[in-house]
């Protein structure tokens, strides 16, 4: 009987071994799994030629990174290799950083990450050791658009290299404008009230909305606010109920939605697939990264043109929405290579930016790179106008306004306020709610 129990014991130990062994051989378990190789994802080693990077769109920023890698390989380091680890969205990258930062374990991060511009300030203050500053890199910082660059400077230190220019364009279908007797020039420098009138005519005449916006984020509100030069934050606190411009912007959106000038899509896919690609609109107001999406509707080629954003009291408005930058993480084993790579390519290489534009529609923020032939080409889809050159020129005029890491949340609550107002609530009450919720979340 003793024998039995001992054998039972041994077998149980074997079973428990499953659990124990997991911890024991976990670190080196690579050999038995597909996740083999180094325990950390940061692919680089000192003196090596390989870097890894996170990016999230096969049709947008991934081709841009590949273009840069090809450029660097061709002109600097023939053995250079960049492995892009595809993510399903900017949110994935941001989650990875948040988790790594809160666990004080950056081993899960690649050498280079790309994420949206609103977050770096918060990340550097929360996780001071998570990113390697770009100090000492050979970059001509004055070459970048100022507004874009302002995001990635924390306390005077450069942390990132801007990739995409997110300057907002207002694109119109000139053929539809023509039907109501308007041209693109009439729309340039107009007031929102003028635009609303044109929109009503367009809807009456063609059945199309003048433009659309996604109801689950605050893009439109932010764009309109920034072109007025006013932020939704002031001195680190929400600036909503006391903000006259905010009231006027929201009233304008409510008015436009009620008059079928602006189609309020209920989600991002509704915005992209239905309103833009489903040919429901005569215009698009969004960061210029929306262009490839518009170009998918090939039937409308040649009918589009772009201009600046209207303002409440008239004049040309400029804004920037949804851009991102590249940052070197603390997990990077070859900081020199990463810095050199970023500085050479996105720091101002015409070859990188030309190919990034051609392959992924990524527009540069380096002003001199817009002088290239590629940038000065007329784009057939946009009536043979050299729109990319125009966009880079527009980006110089974008006003710098206060940013906050609660930017996304502010957008959600403000849009909620607008939607509720459209459905019959009082705007003042709704804005007060939004401010209260936001202050609550910020712990104020």
């Amino acid at each position, binding site marked *: 009987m003793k024998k039995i129990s001992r054998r039972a014991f041994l077998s149980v130990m074997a079973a428990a071994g499953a659990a124990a062994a997991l911890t024991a051989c976990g670190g080196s378990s690579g050999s038995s799994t597909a996740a083999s190789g180094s325990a950390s994802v940061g692919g680089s080693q000192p003196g090596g030629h390989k870097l890894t990077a996170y990016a999230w769109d096969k049709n947008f920023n991934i081709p841009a990174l590949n273009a840069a890698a090809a450029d660097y390989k061709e002109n600097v380091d023939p053995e250079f290799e960049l492995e892009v680890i595809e993510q399903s969205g900017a949110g994935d990258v941001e989650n990875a950083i*948040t988790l790594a930062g809160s666990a004080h374990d950056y081993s899960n991060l690649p050498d280079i990450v790309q994420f949206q511009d609103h977050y770096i300030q918060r990340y550097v203050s929360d996780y001071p050791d998570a990113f390697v500053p770009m100090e000492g890199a050979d970059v001509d910082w004055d070459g970048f658009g100022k507004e874009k660059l302002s995001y990635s400077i924390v306390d005077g230190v450069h942390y990132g290299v801007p990739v995409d220019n997110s300057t907002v364009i207002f694109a119109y279908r000139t053929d539809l404008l023509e039907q109501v007797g308007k041209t693109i020039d009439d729309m340039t420098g107009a007031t929102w009230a003028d635009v609303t009138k044109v929109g009503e005519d367009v809807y009456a005449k063609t059945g199309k909305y003048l433009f659309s916006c996604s109801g*689950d984020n605050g893009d439109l509100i932010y764009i309109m606010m920034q072109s007025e030069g006013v932020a939704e934050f002031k001195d680190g606190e929400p600036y909503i109920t006391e903000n006259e411009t905010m009231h006027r912007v929201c009233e304008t959106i409510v008015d436009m939605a009620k008059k079928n000038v602006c189609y309020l899509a*209920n989600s991002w896919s509704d915005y992209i697939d239905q309103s833009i690609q489903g040919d429901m609109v005569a215009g698009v107001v969004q960061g210029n990264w929306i262009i490839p999406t518009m170009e998918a509707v090939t039937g409308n080629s040649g009918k589009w043109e772009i201009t600046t954003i209207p303002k409440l009291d008239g004049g040309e408005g400029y804004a920037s929405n949804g851009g991102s930058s590249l940052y070197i993480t603390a997990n990077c084993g070859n900081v020199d290579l990463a810095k050199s790579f970023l500085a050479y390519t996105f720091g101002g290489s015409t070859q990188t930016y030309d190919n990034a534009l051609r392959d992924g529609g990524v527009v540069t923020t380096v002003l001199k790179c817009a002088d290239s032939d590629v940038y000065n080409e007329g784009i057939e889809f946009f009536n043979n106008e050299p729109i990319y050159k125009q966009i880079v020129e527009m980006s110089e005029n974008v006003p710098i306004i206060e940013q906050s890491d609660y930017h996304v949340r502010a957008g959600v609550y403000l849009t909620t306020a607008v939607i509720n107002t459209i459905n019959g609530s009082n705007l003042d009450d709704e804005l007060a709610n939004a401010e209260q919720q936001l202050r609550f979340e910020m712990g104020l």
Partner: protein
Amino acid sequence: MKNEKSGSLMAKQRRAGWYYLMPGTVLITIMSFIPIINGFLTSLKTGSSASMKWASPLTYNYTRMFKDALFLRSMGNTFLYLVVEVPIMLILAILLAQLLNNHDLKFKGFFRTCVFLPCATSLVSYSLIFKSLFATDGLVNTVLCKLGILQTHYNFLGNPTSAKIIIILALIWRWTGYNMVFFLAGLQNIDYSVYEAAKIDGANGWQTFWKITVPLLMPTIVMTAIMSINGTLQLFDESVNLTNGGPANATITMSHYIYNNSMGQGVANFGYASALSFVIFVMVAILSFISMKAGDKRD
């Protein structure tokens, strides 16, 4: 002598039992209990996710949530889904199981497979499918318009009420078959002659259902009810993937709100998020306990 020996034998066997259940128990302790205790400790702290400090007062995050209009709304939404969806789904599942348990029915395997299939679909695909079906230009709109039920295309996911209904429909679609399998299994354990006898006694289908099926199925009902309550209170995927909580946060669930507070949208408020999670945990435990007591009358 003999007694003593078998006594020690019993002790040995009992010990063997402990060894057997140890790996599973240890894993659950490490992977579930330690994190939730950790989470509870975090819920008493505030500050940025990298350097958290004890809150003062300690209950700060807990008292805070009752002033949080959005959390209260997410709780309201979640309970609405619970109260509407779980009963409909369970009744439908029992009904289907009852039908499929009929010995005279043909093609049972076929029907059972069809009804079960939805829960074998991956989450990503099922949310995509529902989103496309109910899109403004989607199939449902097209069909309803052609049939003349709708005049113009309706923005199903853009209206708070219809968006909630779609979430509920999606849940029912996905999980009814899964629950049905449990009921079917439970029914197959009931001796068919009980039904024959009831029929002879002149009981109609309705009476048979309430007087025989439901009481005999009680343990299964309790089990599925607990699973469904648990699943619904932790509802996350549908809210994120189908509506992203919208329009205007009208469909957001508690878990989704917690996620937004901990990882989503650039906010890493772990203290508050942990407090919210712990509240869900306690709520699920209480509700499960109640349903267990309500249904468990046999012991």
